[in-house]
């Protein structure tokens, strides 16, 4: 049975193909269109999935969209009516936006793919999140919690799931909290207030939080109160996201927290305003964590299950995830590699397979590498055309050479195997570097990633060595598998892991099992043999404002535009010369035409 899952039209569109109960390909549209956070209908991703499996659209048994468009429209219209007459500016925009394409998904999918309309199905948004979190996790029974900004109406849901090997699957959602009461919207409102991009830069708020103190927790608690049934409600007097599209916080919010940050001004943490912004970030982070922990504790008591599967964009908050692990009562916490909307494509397809069609449960390979594979020969060809020397190595020799490069302080663009699905680079499209000094962190920030100095870099470490460098319990290894948790760096190693240790002594570590990314694992071991510390700095292979690279040519063009020293695609290694692009020919043209 071939089932295509699609998520689109909010942010980060994606497609995923499930064949006989197992995903065979999943890819975000941005990785192919090269527009970061591309929300367009994911035609390129769909094509890539079908091509990967050698299928034509008519071979699809179902195409599942990750939410119910009419239910979402119902929410948009209802909110506009409730905010009458303040919503008069937002109303025409919202209607044009929805009625232009978004509500007609059955017809649109049917006509794009030329499949009968009856084959087009719809899951609920949080159902997709729940399925993505539970059905991809190696657990048979688990409590499920999903939280994001908003789906159709739901913003947070709790439930449980049960699956029997080769037998039936059950996913139940007990209850949900509805828009406009939303933890995701609360966090996003602070994201906007702190001058960052909503739906994109929430992780910057988390990074900034470590520089502040939660001195404004009482003020944040005025914005969100706990209800008598254990849920929460936002005080809408402080928000405007439910009435206008222009601003998410109100004048009362500004009275409470002071003037918002100008997005174009850097944050100076030594200035009073800079510290205030860091304190705001720290306070909203604390309130988010406290709320999630309390909700999860109640869910644990209710279900009595040892495992929790977390889904939705809020599950990208690694600091909160680590607290959930230690304080909620659950023994293990599972977060999929793509907990956000992109991951809903896989969730919708799996839900359709297991629940709608009632197919027997199948184990899902426990890795994030569902995209196209990189071609080393493509890199060799490009480099040679441009006059670079491209050396091709066998596995062992390549690992030794790259380990030597890293020891020598070179920064390596690393492309290996299939592209990751989800926002994290987990070892197949990474920039790798020695993790030991703050100079390396500053160099990466300044010369390659072009990003704010307060943002930390993540480490990757082999599983067997993780506990030596990081204060991470065996149960935390699961969270760290997909870089979903933040854990303390052991104090005795902090000075030697300065590039990856955040200001609060933590790191968003990836713990690597050999089977997940064998070559990167071998590289870590080779690096460990040379330096005594098998830890590398691992950041996504992209520049600011660009999606993670997919093909070798994209890695190559990124390599030429920044100060990455060495580029690797599979077995091919290219080293940057003093002049990245042979200038002579271009200069000649410049002279001719200038």
């Amino acid at each position, binding site marked *: 049975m071939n089932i295509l899952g699609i998520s689109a039209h909010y942010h980060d569109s994606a497609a995923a193909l499930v064949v006989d109960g197992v995903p065979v390909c999943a890819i975000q549209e941005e990785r192919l269109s*090269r527009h970061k956070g591309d929300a367009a209908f994911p035609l390129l991703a769909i094509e890539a999935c079908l091509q990967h499996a050698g299928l034509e659209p008519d071979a699809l048994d179902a195409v*599942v969209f990750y939410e*119910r*468009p*009419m*239910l979402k429209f*119902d929410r948009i219209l*209802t909110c*506009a*009516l*409730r905010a*009458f*007459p303040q919503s*008069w500016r937002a*109303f*025409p925009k919202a209607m*044009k936006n929805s009625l232009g394409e978004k509500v007609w*998904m*059955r017809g649109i999918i049917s006509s794009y793919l030329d499949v009968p309309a009856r084959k087009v*199905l*719809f*899951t*609920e948004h949080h159902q997709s999140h729940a399925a993505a979190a539970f059905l991809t996790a190696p657990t048979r029974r688990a409590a499920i919690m999903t939280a994001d900004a908003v789906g159709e109406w739901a913003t947070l*849901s709790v439930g449980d799931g049960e699956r029997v090997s080769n037998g039936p699957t059950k996913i*139940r*959602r*007990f*209850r*949900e*909290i*509805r828009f406009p*009461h939303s933890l995701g919207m609360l966090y996003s409102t602070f994201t906007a207030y702190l001058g960052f991009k909503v739906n994109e830069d929430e992780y910057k708020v988390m990074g900034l939080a470590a520089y502040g103190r939660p001195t404004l927790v009482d003020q944040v608690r005025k914005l969100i109160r706990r209800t008598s*049934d*254990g*849920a929460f*409600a936002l005080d809408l007097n402080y928000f405007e996201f439910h009435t206008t599209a222009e601003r998410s916080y109100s004048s009362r919010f500004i009275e409470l927290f002071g003037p918002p940050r*100008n997005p*174009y*001004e850097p944050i100076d943490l030594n200035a009073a305003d800079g510290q205030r912004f860091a304190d705001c970030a720290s306070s909203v982070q604390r309130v988010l964590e406290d709320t999630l922990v309390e909700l999860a504790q109640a869910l644990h008591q209710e279900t009595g299950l040892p495992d929790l599967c977390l889904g939705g964009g809020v599950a990208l908050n690694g600091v909160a995830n680590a607290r959930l692990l230690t304080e909620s009562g659950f023994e293990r916490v599972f977060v999929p590699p793509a907990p956000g909307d992109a991951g809903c494509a896989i969730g919708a397809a799996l*839900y359709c397979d297991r*629940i*709608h069609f009632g197919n027997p449960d199948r184990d899902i390979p426990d890795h994030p590498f569902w995209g196209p594979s990189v071609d080393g020969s493509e890199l060799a060809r*490009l480099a040679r*055309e*441009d006059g670079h020397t491209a050396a091709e190595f066998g596995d062992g020799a390549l690992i030794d050479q790259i380990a030597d490069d890293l020891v020598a302080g070179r920064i390596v663009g690393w492309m290996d195997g299939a592209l990751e699905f989800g926002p994290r680079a987990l070892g197949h499209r990474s920039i790798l570097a020695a993790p030991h000094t703050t100079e390396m962190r500053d160099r990466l920030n300044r010369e390659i990633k072009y990003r704010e100095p307060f943002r930390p870099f993540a480490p990757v470490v082999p599983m067997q060595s993780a506990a030596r460098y990081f204060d991470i319990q065996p149960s935390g290894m699961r969270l760290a598998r997909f870089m979903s948790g933040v854990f303390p760096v052991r104090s005795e190693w902090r000075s030697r892991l300065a590039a990856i240790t955040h200001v609060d002594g933590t790191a968003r570590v990836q713990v690597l099992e050999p089977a997940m990314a064998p070559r990167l694992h071998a590289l870590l071991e080779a690096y460990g043999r040379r330096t005594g510390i098998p830890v590398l700095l691992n950041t996504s292979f992209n520049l600011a*404002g*660009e999606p993670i690279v997919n093909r070798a*040519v*994209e890695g190559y*063009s990124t390599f030429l*535009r920044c100060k990455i020293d060495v580029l690797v695609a599979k077995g091919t290694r290219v080293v940057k010369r003093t002049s990245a*692009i*042979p200038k002579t*020919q*271009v200069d000649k*043209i*410049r002279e*001719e*035409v*200038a």
Partner: protein
Amino acid sequence: MDSPRPNERPTAFDRVLTPVHRWIWSDTDRRVQKLFRFGETETDGGRDILRAAEITSDPLLRRLYLEHAIDEFRHGVLFRHRAAALLRASTFNSNPGFYGAWLAPGGHGLDDLQVDGESDSDMLAFLHLSEKAAASRFTVYRNVMQHDPPTRAVFEEILHDETFHMNYTLTQLARVEPERHRRHLWRARLSRLWKAYLRLATGIAGVFGSILLTIQYFVLLPPFAWLAKRAARRELSGWTTVSNERSESLDRQY
């Protein structure tokens, strides 16, 4: 200025609009907004040209596109930095209300070009015309910026690059399509004209749509708004029970 002044002559249309441009750029708030928008446009254009570099099979074009893209990214940074500097210095007492986005457009966002589907010759022709138009406009902007030398210097610097871009795209087009490069240019001109018409038509349709929807909002919606508000008041906050039977059916869109 130390550097030689780019010798681009604005088109007659841009020259006629010089007083309008002078008025648009006279207000600091408007200038800040426009520079930020130009920054975005240049960066977006840079990304598209980068994409062109990644998909072309011609190694020379790849290198030229890459250099071009790097220039565009740098222009984006120049515009943003200048806008941020103006923002810091500005007290923002003025509130122009009108930013003249249509009358004083930016560089050459390639939003309406599907880079992946274009041949090298079509891409070069399109880029040449875009750069030419941008150089013409930027010349006017530079000329009306006597009162703001740092912003003028930004346009001056960018104009140098635009002139290079304009020229290399033409010479490369002649290299790639020696026989038919003029035909490609004419096709690109017509395509730009058609897209300009589509943008205008879409814009006008959008305005009409907004007017109609706003009228509907105030004429038709009030009773429904009253009902919705009344229902909202009765709604309890907190948990809502989920009906799993209802949500398990995947055939429904609501």
